[in-house]
């Protein structure tokens, strides 16, 4: 390590910003945001953040896990508050929930909660220090929601890692995601199986420096 790097690290330890920040997980519905939040929380705290299911809008309110401390391979520690958010959508149709064995009353209630959750997620965006933008690696990356979320993060100058989830599935196409967003750091993972999660932790360390 050169003398300049040593000096830089010395001053950073004395005067550098506290390494505690809010890490938000944002993205469209059913991309695995809560699955990833649960994976991170289980890995480092031994407890989950929220419930996961195949029904859209399962997460309908902001879920926060404080004091997550992750450790790098070389022993560095990073503390953050993890913020799991409801999926952003431009429409919510209660009739869709009827296909998942909910009755009409339950479906309408779920839809009402989902719209409130989306509003809350949008309001919380300003408070995020770093965001994991969750995409489904099996889906079209050029969806308007993806572009809107990324555009907002760019406008707010919030550092982003694009997380392409579900790489365990045959239809996953990580190269398509990387080609669509060459200006971003893209990490392919499976929140379900844990595949490549260590690479994501490495990227979180890098981006938070």
């Amino acid at each position: 390590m050169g003398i300049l790097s040593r000096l830089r690290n010395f001053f950073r330890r004395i005067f550098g910003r506290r390494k505690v920040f809010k890490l938000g997980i944002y993205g469209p519905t059913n991309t695995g945001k809560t699955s990833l939040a649960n994976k991170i929380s289980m890995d480092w705290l031994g407890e989950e953040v929220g419930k996961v299911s195949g029904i859209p809008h399962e997460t309908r309110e902001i879920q926060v896990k404080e004091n997550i401390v992750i450790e790098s391979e070389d022993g560095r520690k990073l503390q953050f508050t993890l913020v799991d958010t409801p999926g952003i959508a431009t429409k919510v149709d209660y009739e869709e929930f009827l296909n998942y064995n909910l009755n009409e009353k339950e479906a309408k209630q779920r839809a009402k909660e989902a719209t409130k959750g989306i509003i809350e997620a949008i309001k919380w965006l300003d408070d995020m220090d770093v965001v994991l933008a969750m995409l489904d690696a099996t889906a079209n990356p050029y969806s308007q929601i993806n572009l809107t979320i990324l555009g907002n993060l760019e406008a707010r100058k919030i550092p982003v890692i694009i997380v392409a989830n579900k790489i365990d599935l045959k239809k996953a196409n990580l190269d398509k995601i990387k080609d669509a967003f060459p200006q971003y750091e893209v990490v392919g993972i499976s929140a379900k199986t844990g595949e490549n999660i260590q690479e994501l932790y490495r990227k979180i360390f890098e981006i938070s420096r």
Partner: protein
Amino acid sequence: MKLEISFLPYEEFSRIGIDRAIEIILDKTRQNNLVIIEGGLTSEEEMNLIEKTMEKVNYRYKGIELCSLSRSQLINNDNLWNRFVNLFLNLLGRRSGGITLVGPAKIIKEIKRHPDKISLLIK
């Protein structure tokens, strides 16, 4: 079911401001209009629109379908002149010269973006 097309010109958009524009856009989608916004919305305006849409969603109004195309996506950006104009507009803080389409989710299943066209999937 009938889908009508409305056009919101850039001059009117600039005159009335984003909050009033969003009110008009959502009113028109509730009347089963597809609204074409000249100049397009910025990402922040799109998010503002989504937030306001969610405030209006209920059992009868399901929300919107949305698609924005920037100028560079609409025109051949291999042309040096077009690239210069795009850069100039961006430097001025002007809208990119693109368009945004906003339609009622009750009628429009999806607005899909392709390299050289937009397709609307109608229910």
